[in-house]
């Protein structure tokens, strides 16, 4: 009994084998809508494919999805080739996708739209990234197949329009697997040369597959990175590629690109003629203006009536002279007034005046001195007379008048003692009216000697 029971694993394995045996499930061509799309970080894609009534889990391993030309998105209708198998751990049958492409529009179209969106978001198409084309390129680089019609169209047009520029052709594969890297490398190579002023990159017309290289990211990035301005020229009027969006200028055709790359020699000659004309016209105008100006100056009042002008000036001069005289006079009188004042003050200060004054003062002082002397003299005289009178009263002469005499020694000194004189000595005796010269014959001393 027990042997009739299976394990889950065994049953699942059995179911798995059933799936694998079924020829139809090994080779499933399916169309449906993507939902729950998840691109796992390890590279595998997990998604659900559904229509309005059913759904099936699906997986697309990295090994398969690497070649996808587009990034699957929810809501996208796709055409799928793959096989159905069982994922045992989950007991789940699922679709293992080998190939997938968008339904309705081609895969290339989707890839185009997606890359366009991506690069738009990055700003690669921004107008302010565009480099200006040189007006007069000296050296033009052409990136295209050296054997196609495009290169011939470009060269013929360049030669016709602007034969003075040099051209270098960078041969590139413009279709096939190797084309994108070939074009990108040619762009880099041209940039390394450092002498190219402008680049034309393109090819003639063809199917979308043939033009595809110009929708590849590698080419778009090479164009974006170029420091040389690039004119893209892919196919015909109607073909617009990613390269066209990234390029600095888009031309509709290779011939158009050559026309955009260089000015036309006829136009330049026309331009130079125009400028020449303008130079002449302007110069003429300038001269005319100057001549007119000169004429105006010549006709001006001053030139026509120089006498008037002179008269006027004469009058002006007179007025000025008058004013000058007046002013001078004024100054003069002011000055002489000042002079007089100064002189007055000076005379006042003059030394002669001072001398006279001093003299006067001296005379006055002398007179006062004289008077004072007089007074003093008189006074002194009177005093003297008084003294003399007093003296006379006291004078020994008075005494002598009464008979006294005075004896003087030989030496003329007053004899006041007997001891002063020796007998035989000459003495003189003064009496009131003269002197007696005497010899001492004898000396008698008084006895009483108090």
């Amino acid at each position, binding site marked *: 009994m027990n042997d009739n029971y299976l394990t889950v694993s065994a049953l699942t394995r059995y179911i798995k084998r059933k799936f694998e045996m079924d020829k139809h499930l090994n080779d499933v061509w399916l169309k449906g809508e993507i939902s729950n799309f998840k691109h796992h970080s390890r590279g595998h894609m997990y998604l659900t494919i559904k229509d309005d009534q059913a759904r099936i889990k699906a997986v697309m391993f990295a090994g398969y999805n690497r070649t996808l030309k587009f990034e699957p998105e929810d809501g996208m209708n796709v055409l799928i080739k793959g096989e159905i198998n069982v994922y045992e751990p989950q007991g789940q049958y699922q679709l293992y996708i080998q190939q997938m492409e968008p339904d309705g529009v081609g895969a290339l179209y989707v890839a185009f739209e997606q890359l366009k969106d991506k690069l738009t978001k990055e700003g690669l198409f921004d107008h302010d990234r565009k480099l200006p084309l*040189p*007006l*007069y390129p*000296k050296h033009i680089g052409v990136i295209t197949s*050296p054997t196609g019609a495009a*290169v*011939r169209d470009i*060269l*013929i047009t*360049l*030669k016709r329009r602007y*034969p*003075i*520029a*040099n*051209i*270098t*052709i*960078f*041969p590139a594969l413009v279709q096939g697997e190797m084309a994108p890297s070939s074009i990108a490398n040619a762009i880099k*190579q041209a940039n390394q040369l450092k002498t190219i002023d402008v680049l034309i990159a393109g090819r003639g017309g063809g199917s979308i597959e043939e033009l595809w290289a110009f929708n590849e990211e590698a080419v778009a990035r090479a164009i974006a990175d170029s420091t040389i301005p690039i004119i893209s020229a892919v196919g015909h009027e109607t073909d617009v590629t990613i390269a066209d969006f990234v390029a600095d200028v888009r031309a509709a055709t290779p011939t158009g690109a050559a026309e955009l790359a260089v000015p036309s*020699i006829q136009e*330049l*000659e026309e*331009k*130079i003629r125009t*400028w*020449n004309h*303008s*130079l002449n016209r*302007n*110069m003429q*105008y*300038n*001269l005319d203006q*100057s001549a007119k100006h000169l004429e105006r100056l010549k006709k001006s009042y001053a030139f026509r009536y120089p006498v008037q002008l002179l008269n006027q000036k004469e009058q002006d001069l007179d007025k000025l002279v008058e004013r000058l005289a007046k002013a001078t006079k004024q100054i003069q009188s002011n000055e002489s007034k000042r002079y007089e004042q100064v002189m007055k003050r000076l005379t006042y200060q003059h030394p002669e005046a001072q001398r006279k004054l001093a003299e006067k003062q001296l005379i006055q002082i002398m007179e006062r001195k004289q008077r004072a002397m007089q007074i003093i003299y008189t006074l002194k005289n009177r005093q003297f007379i008084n003294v003399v009178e007093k003296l006379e009263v006291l004078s020994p002469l008075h005494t002598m008048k009464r008979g006294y005499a005075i004896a003087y020694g030989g030496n003329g000194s007053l004899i006041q003692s007997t001891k002063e004189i020796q007998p035989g000595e000459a003495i003189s005796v003064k009496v009131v009216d003269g002197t007696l010269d005497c010899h001492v014959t004898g000396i008698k001393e008084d006895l009483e000697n108090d």
Partner: protein
Amino acid sequence: MTDKEKEVSFEQAMEDLEAIVEKLEEGEVPLEKAIQYYQQGMELSKVCSNKLTNVEKQMTNIINEQGDLKAFSVQEEE
């Protein structure tokens, strides 16, 4: 071509000429200066014309795999 014409590039000559024309068109240029400009402008326009008429032969080269330049010519269709 004179030496003077050789040393100035066509592009430079064109730019200078345009600048001079603009200056003159603005007016307000003193007469002496204007005459100077005019003479320069005339010389430049002669240089430009000469460069265009006496075209040096256009060089067309192609870069080979070794990165060398080789002369390249296309057969024009009759």
